[in-house]
């Protein structure tokens, strides 16, 4: 299957699904290792919601691509050069500060993105976004509350979240640089022109960072092209693990 020959509208669905799947997969790695039982359960809920969202995007994409495509073929049988997630979401979990920093920065973007997609004339796509907004709002509240707790907690937590935000900040510019996949989607009215999301996003981020007694990181941005399938070295290892079983037994049904 030549995934890059799919219609751009379908590629957009893959881009949306990939962000949700990869981020959900990362969060699922915390299961059994969280800082306290209650938070372990909370993180698992976030992972479940995100993987569930990915399935909806993939199922819609599979239906439209046809040719016997299924959600699992999309998740398990594309190579990393065909994944269209932001490089931000594939970054390793690190410590709890790294995980929440990554989550916080993406959740704020995700909320703005879904609000735009909800207005899309594509009824099926809009419906997915509408349904996802409630849990995404909850997710954004959760991650921003943790950033505040860490920023305004102890000296140690403050320095950890500060360092974590600095590490992840260079990955955020990609969110607002249209690649072909989201540029065409914007032209077709399926999703937002991501350049217009930068200011509202910064406003949300600033508000939370102020409460957290943290300042906006001042780190140079990386030149990233995850939305065009050029990923960091992390994604290859993630997919090798995630896709290993079906690929080891290609004629089996799972």
């Amino acid at each position, binding site marked *: 299957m030549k995934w890059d020959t799919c219609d751009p509208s379908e590629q957009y669905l893959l881009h949306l699904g990939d962000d949700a799947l990869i981020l959900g997969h990362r969060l699922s790695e915390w299961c059994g290792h969280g800082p306290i039982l209650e938070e372990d359960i909370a993180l698992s809920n976030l992972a479940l919601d995100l993987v569930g969202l990915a399935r909806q995007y993939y199922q819609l994409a599979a239906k439209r691509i046809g040719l016997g495509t299924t959600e699992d073929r999309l998740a398990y049988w594309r190579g990393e050069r065909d994944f269209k997630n932001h490089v931000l979401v594939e970054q390793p979990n690190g410590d709890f500060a790294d995980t929440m920093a990554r989550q916080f920065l993406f959740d704020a973007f995700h909320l703005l993105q879904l609000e735009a997609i909800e207005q899309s004339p594509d009824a099926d796509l809009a419906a997915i976004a509408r349904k996802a907004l409630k849990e995404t709002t909850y997710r954004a509240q959760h991650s921003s509350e943790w950033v505040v707790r860490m920023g305004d907690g102890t000296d140690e937590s403050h320095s950890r979240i500060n360092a974590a935000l600095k590490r992840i900040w260079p990955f955020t510019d990609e969110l607002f640089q249209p690649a072909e996949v989201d540029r065409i989607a914007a032209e077709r009215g399926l999703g937002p022109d991501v350049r217009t999301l930068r200011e509202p996003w910064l406003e949300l981020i600033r508000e939370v960072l102020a409460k957290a007694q943290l300042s906006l990181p001042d780190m140079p941005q990386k030149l990233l092209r995850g939305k065009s399938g050029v990923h960091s070295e992390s994604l290859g290892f993630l997919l090798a693990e995630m896709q290993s079983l079906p690929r080891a037994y290609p004629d089996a049904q*799972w």
Partner: protein
Amino acid sequence: MAPTIDMEARFLDYVTAENKVEPKDWMPEGYRKTLVRQISQHAHSEIVGMLPEANWITRAPSLRSKLILLAKVQDEAGHGLYLYSAAETLGTSRDEMIADLHSGKAKYSSIFNYPTLSWADMGAIGWLVDGAAIQNQVMLCRASYGPYSRAMVRICKEESFHQRQGYEIMLHLAKGTQEQKDMAQDALNRWWWPSLMMFGPSDDNSPNSAQSMAWRIKRKSNDELRQEFVDKTVPQAKFLGLSIPDADLRWNEALGQHDFGSIDWNEFFAVVAGNGPCNSERIEARRKAHAEGAWVREAASAYAAKQAARRSSAAATKPQAA
């Protein structure tokens, strides 16, 4: 001395009549201690039990199975939480219980010291391990201690999907390619005997059993539960077309139950003593998570304290209403 005997006798009559004991009631110290040990052990088992299955979340072979496995392991965290809560009503704290787990002082079900080596293990664990646990749990829904029995009722409601999920995986593999069938048989071969050991040694070798039965915190003997499990599971294995790794397994017409081979109790006691394949890894994983989470928990406590201080100083400086 007479008043003490009256209390204990009265308590015994009370529980024999199937009444519930609540946190504030008088109870023999032995009853309280046994319950703290039993409930916390059960809680530890749920938490440690997350690890062998969490091992396969990132490798689940379909999106649907990924969600189901993640939900199942999350349930186990929840069960641990309900049980720690029930134990806390008896005058212990979660931190104390966790410290005992990490120091090796407290035990957890030995089955979780075995490694999960294939996706079929996810099936075998759901089918056999959860199957065995359910038997124990249903009985405990009628335990005499109120908070424990109520936690068990909640757990049993959620548990029903766990065993079905495991059996569904086994069914799917058993009907699949030859490699999948072999995977399923291999998992059954490795998990069968440890599952039988889950019920514990024969009650003749279990000194606490009689007292626990009298106090209604144990309602069936280990051997009874084990026999029920075998009788229930043999036809399920037959349906899968898999063979149980016991050459001595056969139907006993006279007794209306299955005869089965002898359990290697040396293995059981070795694993309980800490020398199973994964004991150290399991405890190390829990210790690490707890240690690495300390700064997170401290941060949340510190922030909460700051917020409380801010609220009370804001209240103090509020201008009086006219």
